[in-house]
């Protein structure tokens, strides 16, 4: 009241407007000083707030920069693989190109032409292997005279073909043929087209330096339409070849890969003269533009040039933002938007929390200033100036952090990006000024939004409010209802009058009661902390989830322990029996592989199939039934009577010994010269919807009997299960197209060629196995045997005839290079005559790629989570610490009324625990919902997925929450204690 009175008097005495004008610079500096001092006075909170702003800005900048960089990488990848052309069209008249130049004007950036010289018909004989036609295209050549045609050659307008061998043609008369013609001989004679003789003849099998003579003509399809001249090698209905020119000889200088765009075409150089009779040729123009805002503007220019059909390089246009599509760019933009919103919400809650606390701490000061004549606008500005100062420090710091952080993240994850983009393009950091400007803008908006409400509140503080300082006590409605129900004074106390009423007091005494009451009275403030904590917890747990799911997804690729794998497929005779003896080769291959430099150890398996029989008691008929119902393969290659066909896996000596060791077999059984077997008793019934494994064997049969194939099988008959699950000689029923039994097994008279004791029924191969169950048969029983014993057994011939392939699994020496070693291994194994084709797999590389991808996703995921977490933690710290510090006087009052340190500490712990429990429960609940949603989304693709909470991350979240609360409370209490109890009790200005 006194202050108001003073101001009124002042107004009367001085000519106020003039004085105010004179004093305004002084006022400004007073308020600026005041702002700076209040920031300095709360150094820790100021620092935490600046860090919060910096993190938010940094994260925004990092997200924007990352998205731009990814976009640039995708664009670069698209440029590298498909060229920079945006649209292309076929023309038959060179003038069309000039018209395009005219129509696009300055917009035309780069232009390349590819000429289509025509197609040659192959003889009917050659056509069997190599198609009806061979088209001939010129290499694309960039045209000068456009904006960037000179100098900018990092990417081609449209890339030329990929050379498989030799080189591309460089002068007229040279030709590069598609690889499928390598070794083929093009002959003369009638072609597949009525009345057209072969126009493609070679001087023997085609190789480097061969001469091929081609007579090129125009392919016509339909009435007047000249169908794409070179497209496809196969004959279209009703098409003709006309305008065939004189045969011309070309020298083969290389072989090129075929691709979808060019079809089966040979390439000549751009200067090759036309070869059709009329001298007419077609061409395709590919061009890029600058300055157009959408693909349709490019289309408009084409229409203006008189082009009526063209194609767009759609992928590129989408990446360039000129075309809309359901593409990765959209998802990237959406992800960026979602992340930006999450960051901004987290940041607004943090920063506005800090301001709110800063304002309520200074309520009395604002009241005082207001009573001394500070206008509302001046008070508002004080707060906004505070925001501006914090922003001036925090935002540039954030930009540096964000860009630097993104650079580090991209550097760390370079391998992962390369693996994911499947190209040699690397993702490098692209810092666009627009992104930085956007980050700064968003940060400014965030700051303004954060400071606005607190600033408004500061300007509305009245002197009376300030002195009563009652703004912070807002009892919840529940508490007011409780009070309203209480009638007499004694209603506040328990029946024995020793405690306040209520559960908290009964359980935890006065400290718990006080804590509970404080939370009921300042629920709003507490909610800020709880929500911030819950969001942090949910983020952390969700990160764990996503990471687990990712790991799970890549973890399903079971590769065994081997680093390299070489598949060797048997050379077969006309009856599809192997020419060589794969059984005998098994050990030889292992020896051979182990001599390759870089190979530490090698294991060899030889695969084949053999009919077998075991006692019916050894078969679990129910399991077979389940397999037939659930698995995507139909019936199992084993029936209830014990007849079946086994997927035979023969092992080299060392591998057999290792397997026997891991299964704990006897010494006799470990001996690879002893005939015995391990039956894999597990069959996967995983289908699109469910996951499962059944055990088809009961384990009751001690031996299995290998059977010789039946004699005189018809060509449409084979050994296998009929649709009802019965094993025997089966055939396809002409009416139903189902598989039916032709001859039951017991009538086949299949001779038993060997009795093999079963050493073990194993449910898995163990962790040390070089090969995995994925390498084995999915719908037939897997029987594993030592190759040495099989070779010595009387049934060898039957087994040998059923073999189909061998596989070499190699582990690398510590120093060895995987790619070199794989090459050496392939070379060492290729020369063996018994095998036809060879396939190599670099398992290390596959594993490395999947690890790199996982790492990449994890790095970005955890960076984001860690920073959002840091923002939330700063938020919780500010809220809890400041909330406690504001109550200094209340604490002093409690202590002067006789509350001991221990009770006091218990009260604070109770308050913080309440917040912690609510935050954790809320966060875990939120994470569980997210988990369920993710699970639903992911189970569509991975049937073996089990719904599991990442308890490790929940525990981590728990630890984070406890630590944050402990640090916040500890800091606040130290500050509170530092204040003398006496001073606190007397303090009239807080």
């Amino acid at each position, binding site marked *: 009241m006194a202050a108001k009175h003073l101001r009124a008097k002042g107004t009367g005495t001085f000519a106020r407007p003039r004085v105010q004008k004179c004093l305004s610079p002084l006022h400004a500096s007073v308020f600026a000083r005041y702002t700076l001092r209040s920031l300095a006075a709360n150094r820790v909170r100021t620092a935490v707030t600046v860090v919060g702003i910096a993190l938010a800005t940094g994260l925004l900048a990092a997200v924007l920069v990352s998205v731009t960089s990814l976009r640039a990488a995708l664009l670069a990848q698209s440029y590298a693989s498909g060229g920079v052309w945006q649209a292309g069209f076929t023309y038959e008249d060179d003038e069309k190109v000039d018209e395009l130049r005219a129509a696009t004007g300055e917009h035309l950036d780069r232009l390349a032409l590819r000429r289509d010289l025509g197609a040659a018909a192959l003889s009917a004989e050659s056509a069997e292997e190599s198609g009806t036609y061979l088209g001939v295209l010129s290499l694309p050549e960039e045209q000068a005279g456009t904006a960037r045609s000179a100098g900018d050659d990092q990417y081609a307008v449209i890339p030329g073909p990929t050379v498989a061998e030799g080189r591309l043609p460089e002068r007229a008369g040279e030709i590069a043929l598609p690889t499928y013609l390598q070794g083929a001989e093009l002959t003369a004679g009638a072609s597949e087209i009525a009345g057209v003789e072969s126009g493609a003849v070679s001087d023997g099998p085609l190789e480097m330096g061969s001469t091929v003579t081609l007579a090129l003509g125009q392919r016509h399809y339909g009435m007047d339409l000249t169908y794409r001249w070179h497209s496809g090698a196969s004959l279209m209905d009703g098409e003709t070849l006309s305008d065939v020119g004189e045969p011309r000889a070309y020298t083969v200088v290389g072989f090129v890969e075929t691709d979808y765009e060019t079809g089966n075409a040979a390439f000549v150089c751009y200067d090759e003269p036309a070869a059709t009779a009329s001298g007419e040729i077609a061409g395709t123009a590919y061009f890029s533009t600058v300055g157009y805002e959408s693909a349709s503007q490019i289309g408009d220019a084409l229409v203006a040039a008189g082009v009526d059909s063209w194609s767009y390089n759609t992928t590129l246009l989408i990446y360039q933002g000129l075309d809309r599509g359901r593409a990765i760019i959209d998802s990237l933009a959406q992800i960026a938007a979602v992340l930006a919103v999450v960051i901004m919400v987290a940041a607004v809650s943090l920063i506005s929390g800090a301001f709110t606390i800063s304002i309520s701490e200074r309520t009395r000061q604002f009241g005082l200033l207001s009573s001394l004549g500070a206008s509302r606008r001046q008070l508002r500005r004080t707060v906004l100036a505070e925001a501006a100062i914090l922003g001036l420090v925090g935002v540039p710091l954030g930009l540096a952090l964000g860009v630097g952080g993104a650079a580090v993240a991209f550097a760390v994850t370079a391998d992962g990006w390369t693996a994911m983009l499947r190209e040699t393009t690397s993702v490098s950091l692209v810092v666009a000024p627009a992104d930085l400007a956007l980050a700064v803008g968003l940060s400014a908006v965030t700051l303004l939004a954060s400071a606005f409400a607190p600033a408004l509140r500061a300007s509305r503080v009245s002197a009376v409010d300030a002195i009563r300082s009652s703004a912070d006590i807002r009892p919840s409605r529940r508490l007011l209802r409780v009070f309203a129900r209480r009638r007499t004074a004694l209603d*506040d106390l328990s029946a024995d009058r*020793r*405690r*306040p009423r209520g559960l908290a007091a009964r359980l935890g005494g006065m400290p718990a009661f006080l804590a509970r009451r404080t939370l009921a009275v300042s629920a709003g403030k507490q909610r800020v902390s709880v929500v911030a904590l819950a969001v942090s917890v949910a983020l952390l747990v969700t990160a764990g989830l996503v990471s687990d799911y990712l790991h799970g997804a890549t973890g399903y690729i079971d590769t065994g322990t081997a680093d390299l794998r070489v598949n060797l497929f048997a050379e077969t005779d006309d009856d599809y029996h192997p020419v060589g003896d794969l059984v005998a080769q098994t050990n030889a291959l292992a020896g051979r592989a182990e001599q390759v430099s870089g190979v530490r150890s090698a294991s060899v398996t030889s695969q084949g199939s053999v009919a077998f029989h075991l006692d019916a008691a050894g078969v679990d008929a129910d399991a077979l039934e389940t397999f037939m119902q659930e698995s995507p393969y139909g019936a199992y290659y084993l029936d209830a009577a014990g007849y079946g066909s086994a997927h035979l896996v023969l092992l080299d000596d060392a591998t057999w010994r290792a397997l026997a060791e891991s299964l704990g077999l006897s010494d006799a059984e470990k001996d690879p010269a002893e005939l015995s077997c391990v039956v894999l008793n597990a069959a996967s019934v995983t289908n699109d919807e469910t996951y499962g494994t059944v055990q088809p064997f009961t384990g009751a049969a001690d031996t299995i009997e290998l059977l010789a194939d039946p004699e005189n099988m018809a060509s449409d008959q084979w050994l296998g299960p009929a649709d009802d699950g019965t094993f025997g000689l089966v055939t396809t029923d002409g009416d139903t197209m189902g598989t039916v039994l032709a001859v039951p097994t017991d009538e086949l008279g299949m001779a038993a060629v060997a009795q093999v004791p079963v050493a073990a029924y194993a449910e898995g191969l163990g962790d040390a196995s070089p090969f995995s169950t994925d390498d084995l048969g999915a719908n037939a029983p897997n029987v594993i045997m030592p190759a040495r014993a099989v070779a010595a057994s009387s049934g060898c011939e039957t087994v040998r005839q059923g073999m189909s392939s061998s596989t070499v699994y190699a582990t690398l020496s510590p120093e060895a290079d995987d790619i070199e070693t794989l090459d050496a291994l392939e070379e060492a194994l290729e020369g063996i005559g018994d095998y036809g084709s060879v396939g190599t797999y670099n398992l290390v590389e596959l594993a490395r790629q999947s690890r790199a991808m996982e790492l990449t996703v994890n790095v970005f995921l955890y960076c984001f989570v860690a920073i959002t977490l840091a923002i939330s933690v700063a938020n919780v710290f500010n809220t809890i610490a400041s909330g406690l510090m504001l109550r200094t006087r209340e604490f002093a*009052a409690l202590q002067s009324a*006789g509350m001991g340190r221990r009770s006091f500490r218990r009260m604070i712990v109770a308050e913080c625990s309440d917040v912690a429990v609510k935050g954790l429960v809320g966060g875990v609940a939120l994470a569980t919902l997210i988990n369920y949603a993710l699970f639903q989304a992911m189970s569509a693709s991975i049937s073996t997925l089990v719904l599991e909470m990442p308890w490790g991350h929940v525990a981590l979240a728990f630890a984070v929450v406890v630590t944050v609360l402990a640090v916040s409370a500890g800091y606040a209490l130290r500050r509170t204690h530092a204040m003398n109890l006496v001073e606190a009790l007397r303090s009239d200005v807080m």
Partner: protein
Amino acid sequence: MDILQIEHLTKTYGSGDTAVRALDDVSFTVAAGEFVAIIGSSGSGKSTLLHMIGGVDRPTSGTVRLNGEDVFQRSDEQLAVFRRREVGLVYQFYNLVPVLDVVENMCLPVLMDGRAVNEKRLTNMLRVLGLEGREHHLPNQLSGGQQQRVAIGRALMNAPAVVLADEPTGNLDSRNSAEIMSLLRKSNKELGQTLIVITHDEDIALTADRVIALEDGRIASDTRVH
């Protein structure tokens, strides 16, 4: 009988050149049932003295004996017990716990001690303090005078050995001041409550049994009024 014995009480804040002697060798005794007013200018050491007696602050040297027991031989935890049982403090700025209602604030020291609240005393007190009908209000729903009455209720609830009031009327208008002082005097006369009041107000000081004047941390005069 002397309920309070203060001997050679000295309190120094800071050290070296900046050291300030807030209390300098103060000794006096207070008899049970006595009403003592302590006067003095700002910085004379009044409040420091009161906080020493109340066990809120520890002296640099000297002893305070309440009921014959040395207050500062106690540990911090025991001091807290001492504060809630033996003394009742009333401040200029009330210092109520903002989250507790009137009754809860008044009963706070008793409840913290885990003893049963004396029902008769509580109802009596509420009536005498004129707080009937306000039992379940929070401090910020009360006027300054009402808040100070709650503070007095809190101080008296435990029937402490001594009630210490630091400018209890300093923040109140004259009507409320008079009410508060009459309440305090009433407790002194009717309940025989030992009372030490710090005041600036000469009229208040003159209603006490005895007036102790402090000057620069020393006792300048000790006058028996009645």
